[in-house]
């Protein structure tokens, strides 16, 4: 018997163990659940240690090499690893109430750095480009289909923005626009729900397809 078939069969059994929860909670489900949690934790620990902690913190500080790989430049690499490494360690100070406040230094640098990195491009991607994308001509000559789509989009955009404008009472024109806005929001929720159903069912389809493949492999193995 092929080794891959043994592993695939084990995976199939675990899949069935997880789905057995749909009938009711049981020890097979519990076993599979705990196995996933344990294996995942170990996997992530190893991956992060060997891909992140070791090459970026441990190796540069404790395994200094003269004339090693080009990026292992003595001095620069050493300090660049030590300072963030110490800042990372400071985050754990919160487990000790007396010096817990020290963790805020590292957190402050982290938040400040990320804010600096994010503000301009996020503003561009999430706001400015979206305004540009929403600024469409309502009438496109000789193209009624595009005109109709653009009108739908602009009306929806204005309606939805109006719905979230709380400084004036939603009466008159504002009220009509807000009502149109809520219709668009509901359509949006409906689309999201439809996609969510599709996504969850896809996972089930994937598992069923996998079980079918395992069954096929068994039939082929038994036939040979």
């Amino acid at each position: 018997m092929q080794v891959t078939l043994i592993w695939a069969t084990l995976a199939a059994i675990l899949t069935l163990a997880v789905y057995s929860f749909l009938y009711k909670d049981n020890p097979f489900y519990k076993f599979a659940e705990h196995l996933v949690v344990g294996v995942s934790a170990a996997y992530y620990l190893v991956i992060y240690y060997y891909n992140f902690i070791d090459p970026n913190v441990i190796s540069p500080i404790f395994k200094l090499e003269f004339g090693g790989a080009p990026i292992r430049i003595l001095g620069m690499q050493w300090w660049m690893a030590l300072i963030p490494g110490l800042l990372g360690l400071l985050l754990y100070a919160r487990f000790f109430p007396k010096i817990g406040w020290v963790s805020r230094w590292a957190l402050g640098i982290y938040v400040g750095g990320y804010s600096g990195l994010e503000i301009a491009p996020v503003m561009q991607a999430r706001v400015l480009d979206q305004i540009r994308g929403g600024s469409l001509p309502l009438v496109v000559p000789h193209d009624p289909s595009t005109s109709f789509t653009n009108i739908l989009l602009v009306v929806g955009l204005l309606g939805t923005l109006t719905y979230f404008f709380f400084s004036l009472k939603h009466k008159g024109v504002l009220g009509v626009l807000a009502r149109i806005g809520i219709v668009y929001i509901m359509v949006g929720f409906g689309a999201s729900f439809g996609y969510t159903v599709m996504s969850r069912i896809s996972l089930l389809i994937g598992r069923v397809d996998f079980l079918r493949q395992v069954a096929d492999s068994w039939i082929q193995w038994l036939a040979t």
Partner: protein
Amino acid sequence: MGLLEKFLQIDRRWIFLAIAIAVVVPFFLPMGLPVVVTKPVRDLYNAVDAIPPNSEPLFISVDYAPSTIPELDPMTLAVLRHAFSKDIRVVALTLDPAGYGLAERALESVAREYGKERNKDYVYLGFQPGIAAVVLGMGTDIKGVFPEDAYGTPLSEIPMMDGIRNYDQIPLLITMASSGVIEAWVIYAHQPYGARIGAGVTAVMATDYYPFLDTGQLVGLLGGMRGAAEYEELIKHPDAGVRGMDSQSVIHVLIIVLIVLGNIAYFGSKKRSQEAKEPAA
């Protein structure tokens, strides 16, 4: 208890059973329902198709974990098949630690199908943590972020990577993402460096990224298993995506029927209980 009340109190395990039957039966009795290709999928296909063979490589970032394999694996395989069938070079990487083995498996299996050689036709860079730092770093020096490939070969010793310095030499980067990492590619690669980004996402995420598509920040978008099926149709290589679409269609009909019946039962029983409360005239 009337029929309507009985329907509202049905044991949900009957619904699970109905769903299971609706998923399983089309696998044994395929209906071959048509898959209509939508514009976002065709746009991504055209963007890949426009890359000249044996020139600057297509980058694929496999940013998903095993929990989303049924949706994102078929997309990755379809895009890789498209690229290799047209002799387009591929560089794969992952920003998700759980994506390390998935990317390798997909790349190796499709490369074998098309007789492609590692470090000549494709390169696997492996995993690098720190999403923002990696994406930003690739904008200035890819070899600084990934000094070696996943197997320890320095990129400077891989001829395929000669002259590939940053996003200027990447005609297209496609992220197959099951998390918000797609936004990092848009924010840190497209916005500051003008990188051309395409994406494949799980269906549950798809609606979040249509605004990026409409504003040109994404070249194309594959949404869920359906997106994968459409891409498989375009490359004329039906696989897991197309195979799953029959079940998907049957399930959707079943859920629509259940929603309609549930609403009829809910409003019917509500009306009946109101009538029962009203005093006899």
